[in-house]
């Protein structure tokens, strides 16, 4: 037995109010009702019970479940009775739709449910969608038709596989897909590059080190013979010790010392070069003796009296130098100078005293003369004065005592009276006292003058007396003058011999100096020679020949020392350079070790990455193979499904419904494996040749037919899982011709191919026609027609009519 729908009870579901029961247990169930009577509600209730969903509603509104309960009702109930459905739960299957959702689940399992929704149930919306797909079909990968076809054929997964594996096909795409892939390639590249760089560096460094070793070895060989046989470019094990040997430093220091010694000797030998060597010592000695004899002779003969004279003079001049202590000329000159000086001084002192004596005599004469004049004046005055004589005399006696205007009597200043000078006043008084006033005045003046002169002379005389030498002094001076004069005479007598003495002594000194000089020079030459001899021995040079001049010998040794110094400096320089090179060599050897280690570790690392990358590459190739196989499979599947199955049955169905339409719709297929599946519709002329797109070539009615037949073709082209076709008013825009053809097709599907057909229509003539066309054709065949309507109270009513087969008596089969 094949699976069959038996009946459905529906309560308060969508537009169905109350409860109706629709019998379905016939090969064909034909439902009629006006719009809004609940046809679509019944069919969607079947879908909901079978699949748990109403796909067409879900497409329009994801929240459609909230609107399933009939308005005003508390809940909806659906009970579907089926028979012989594999894997179905107990039948009847019940769903209760409450405010909390749908209870009861789906009667069919996932695959079965999907099959029903896609291949068995043609909702009005699905037909509309099919039409829409036709009209908007464009050759795009994301077009609705492509999606639809892929979905229907299950190509989505295959395309996902192909698209998803696409990056494996081309390394550039793989890189875009996986950054790590790129990183790995880069890392391997970096490692390879680093290894190569390090290997180049290693080769260069090795070569460098070898050359350096050869160079160091060459230097070593020149410095000293190698202590052990060393092959090739190898270095002795103690190379650093050999290079660090300080002998050369020591030698150089030693030679530096020698050079300084020689410089010192050269300096010392300078006098030897400058002193004339012509005078021999013997001549100098003779000369010296002669000069000394001459000088001694002078000292004994001529010099002695001079010395004696000077010694005598020391009684006067204690500090006179002796001839011995200076030289005769100096001693003589000093004595002469001092003696002449003293003599001059003594002579002047006596002369001065003589002058003072003369002055005293003169001043004494002046005193006497003045005294005589005063006495004379006094005598005349005494003769002039009478009675008043006394007063006149007294006044006259006062006048000499009047100086300026101070009164010698009262002491007052006569100048305060402003009546002339006091002298005139007194003189006038005198004159008035005497008749011979003028005379008296003259006498007075004369006397006064004489008294003054006398006083002055007395003062001068006294002063001169004070200046006079004492007698003892004067005597002593005279004695000294005498002595000095005597000494002067004696000096003058010897003056001539002083010069000779001085010359002799000078010659003596000169001869002595020269002798001493000659002796010094000889001693120096001896010392220098001895030192040079030492140096010759120390330097292991030819000893100093007697005929070899000192400068020449110094020059010879200096040249030698300089050469040695240069040689050792050079060695030292090379040694240091070699040591520097050796240190560089050591560094290079360390670097070589490091490079070798780095290369080894990088190579190990690279191998790991290479292996990993090779594995990834193998995976990529495998993925590529899968992609290729998948692409081939798709080509095969698409070709098989479309060409052998889908297009063929579609054509058959379409031709049945539109026999007069010369263009038949068909899927155009991708021509190659690589081409993406782009579902494109075309038309094919029945006589051959390709037409345009269906939308352009077919009438609206035929487009509808094309959509309908595509659905039926899809249903028929797969294994018959569920032999049900549930169609919701599929013929709304068909003309009568098409409807007649469609009815015949439905009959063929029901009778010949055992499809259980549930179809709802709203047009009465169509309903009647279909009822006739789908009438039972043989014994056991059955048709149920259901009239959906509403009671006057608004409750839904389903009125079934059962049509059984009756033999046709009108036109009997012969």
């Amino acid at each position, binding site marked *: 037995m094949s699976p069959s729908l038996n009946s459905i009870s529906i309560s308060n579901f969508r537009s169905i109010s109350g409860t109706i029961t629709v019998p379905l247990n016939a090969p064909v169930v034909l439902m009629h009702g006006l719009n809004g009577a609940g046809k679509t509600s019944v069919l969607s209730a079947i879908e909901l019970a079978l699949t748990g969903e109403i796909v067409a509603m879900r497409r329009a509104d994801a929240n459609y479940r909230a609107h399933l309960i009939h308005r005003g009702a508390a809940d909806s109930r659906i009970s579907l009775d089926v028979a012989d459905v594999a894997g179905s739960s107990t039948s009847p299957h019940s769903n209760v739709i409450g405010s909390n959702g749908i209870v009861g689940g789906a009667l069919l399992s996932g695959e079965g449910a999907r099959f029903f929704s896609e291949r068995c149930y043609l909702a009005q919306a699905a037909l509309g969608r099919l039409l829409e797909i036709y009209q908007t079909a464009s050759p795009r990968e994301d077009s609705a038709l492509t999606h639809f076809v892929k979905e229907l054929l299950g190509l989505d997964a295959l395309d996902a596989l192909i*698209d998803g594996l696409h990056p494996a096909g081309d390394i550039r795409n793989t890189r875009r897909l996986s950054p790590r892939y790129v990183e790995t390639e880069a890392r391997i590249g970096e490692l390879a590059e680093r290894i190569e760089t390090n290997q180049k560096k290693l080769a260069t460094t090795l070569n460098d080190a070898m050359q350096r070793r050869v160079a160091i070895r060459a230097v070593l060989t020149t410095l000293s013979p190698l202590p052990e046989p060393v092959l090739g470019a190898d270095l002795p094990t103690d190379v650093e010790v050999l290079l660090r040997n300080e002998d050369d430093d020591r030698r150089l220091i030693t030679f530096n010392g020698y050079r300084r010694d020689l410089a010192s000797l050269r300096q010392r030998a300078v006098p030897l070069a400058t002193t004339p060597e012509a005078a021999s010592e013997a001549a100098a000695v003779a000369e010296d003796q002669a000069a000394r004899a001459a000088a001694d002779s002078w000292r004994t003969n001529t010099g002695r009296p001079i010395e004696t004279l000077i010694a005598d003079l020391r009684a006067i001049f204690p500090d006179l130098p002796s001839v011995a202590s200076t030289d005769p000329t100096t001693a003589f000159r000093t004595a002469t100078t001092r003696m002449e000086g003293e003599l001059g001084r003594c002579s002047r002192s006596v002369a001065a005293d003589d002058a003072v004596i003369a002055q005293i005599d003169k001043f004494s004469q002046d005193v006497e003369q003045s005294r005589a004049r005063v006495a004379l004046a006094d005598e005349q005055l005494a003769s002039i004065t009478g009675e008043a004589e006394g007063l006149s005399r007294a006044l006259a006696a006062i006048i000499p005592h009047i100086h300026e205007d101070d009164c010698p009597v009262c002491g007052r200043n006569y100048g305060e009276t402003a009546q002339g000078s006091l002298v005139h006043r007194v003189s006038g008084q005198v004159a008035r006292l005497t008749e011979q006033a003028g005379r008296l005045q003259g006498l007075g003046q004369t006397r006064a003058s004489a008294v003054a002169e006398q006083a002055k002379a007395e003062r001068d005389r006294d002063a001169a007396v004070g200046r006079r030498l004492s007698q003892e002094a004067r005597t002593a001076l005279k004695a000294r003058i005498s002595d000095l004069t005597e000494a002067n005479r004696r000096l003058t007598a010897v003056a001539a011999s002083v010069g000779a003495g001085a010359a002799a002594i000078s010659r003596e000194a000169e001869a002595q100096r020269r002798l001493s000089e000659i002796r010094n020079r000889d001693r120096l030459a001896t010392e220098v020679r001895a030192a040079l001899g030492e140096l010759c021995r120390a330097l292991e040079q030819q000893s100093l020949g007697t005929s070899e001049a000192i400068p020449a010998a110094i020059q010879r040794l200096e040249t030698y020392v300089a050469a040695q110094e240069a040689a050792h400096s050079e060695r030292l320089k090379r040694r240091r350079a070699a040591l520097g090179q050796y240190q560089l060599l050591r560094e290079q050897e360390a670097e070589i070790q490091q490079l070798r280690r780095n290369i080894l570790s990088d190579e190990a690392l690279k191998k790991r990455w290479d292996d990993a990358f090779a594995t*990834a590459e193998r995976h990529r190739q495998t993925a590529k193979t899968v992609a290729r196989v998948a692409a081939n499979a798709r080509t095969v599947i698409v070709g098989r499904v479309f060409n052998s199955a889908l297009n063929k*049955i579609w054509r058959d169905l379409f031709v049945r419904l539109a026999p007069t339409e010369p263009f038949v719709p068909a899927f155009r297929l991708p021509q190659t494996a690589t081409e993406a599946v782009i579902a494109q519709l075309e038309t094919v002329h029945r006589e051959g040749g390709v037409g345009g797109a269906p939308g352009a070539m077919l009438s609206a009615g035929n487009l509808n037919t094309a959509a309908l037949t595509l659905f039926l073709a899809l249903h028929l082209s797969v294994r018959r899982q569920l032999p049900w076709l549930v169609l919701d008013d599929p013929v709304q825009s068909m003309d009568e011709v098409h409807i007649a*053809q469609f009815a015949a097709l439905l009959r063929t599907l029901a*009778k010949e191919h055992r499809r259980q057909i549930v179809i709802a229509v709203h047009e009465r003539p169509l309903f009647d026609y279909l009822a006739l066309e789908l009438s039972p054709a043989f014994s056991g065949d059955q048709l149920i027609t259901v009239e959906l309507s509403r009671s006057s109270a608004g409750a839904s009513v389903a009125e079934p009519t059962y049509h059984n087969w009756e033999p046709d008596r009108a036109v009997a089969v012969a």
Partner: protein
Amino acid sequence: MTQSQPVTRVIRILSAAGYRLRASPVTVASVPFEFAALLLGSDRANDLIIVVDTLVDREERIRQKVEGLSRALDLVGSRRPLTVVLVGPAPRPAIVEALARVSRVLAVGTPTGPSADRFLEDTLAVLLPLALPDAGETVVDPLNEVRSQLSADIDEAVVAPVLAAASGGADAVKGALRAILEEPLDLGSEGLAT
């Protein structure tokens, strides 16, 4: 009544499809009706098919006969659907329309040439059996097909994840592919350059 060649062809095709030719004229509700041919379906379809040669019968006459037959069938309560096959020149549209109101009209014309039979079959297709394609030719699971075409020694470590990801879409496959490619490249810390 003699049968023209086109009528014979129609009869041959329909007979091959299981329709049985009835002698003409046929009497329905005591009324005799004569047509070029008359065929009856059996189990699968209880059609009554009349074949009319428009070259022989006049249009109006054809209409009268078909409408008469239709009324006669209604009269006796027959549930046989009536199909009229028009052979020969197409009648006026008004006639065809009138016929279509009471029957299914299949106008086959006068096909000639090598594709004549094919044309006839197309036109009569609705009356003929429907050949369904072999269901095995349609694919149930394309991925299984892919798997069956892969060689046995293919690396399952690569194949299994990508096939498993296929139902999740291209991005899921890409993700799986990326994981497969990157898995060996994850050397962790030991792969880090020193």
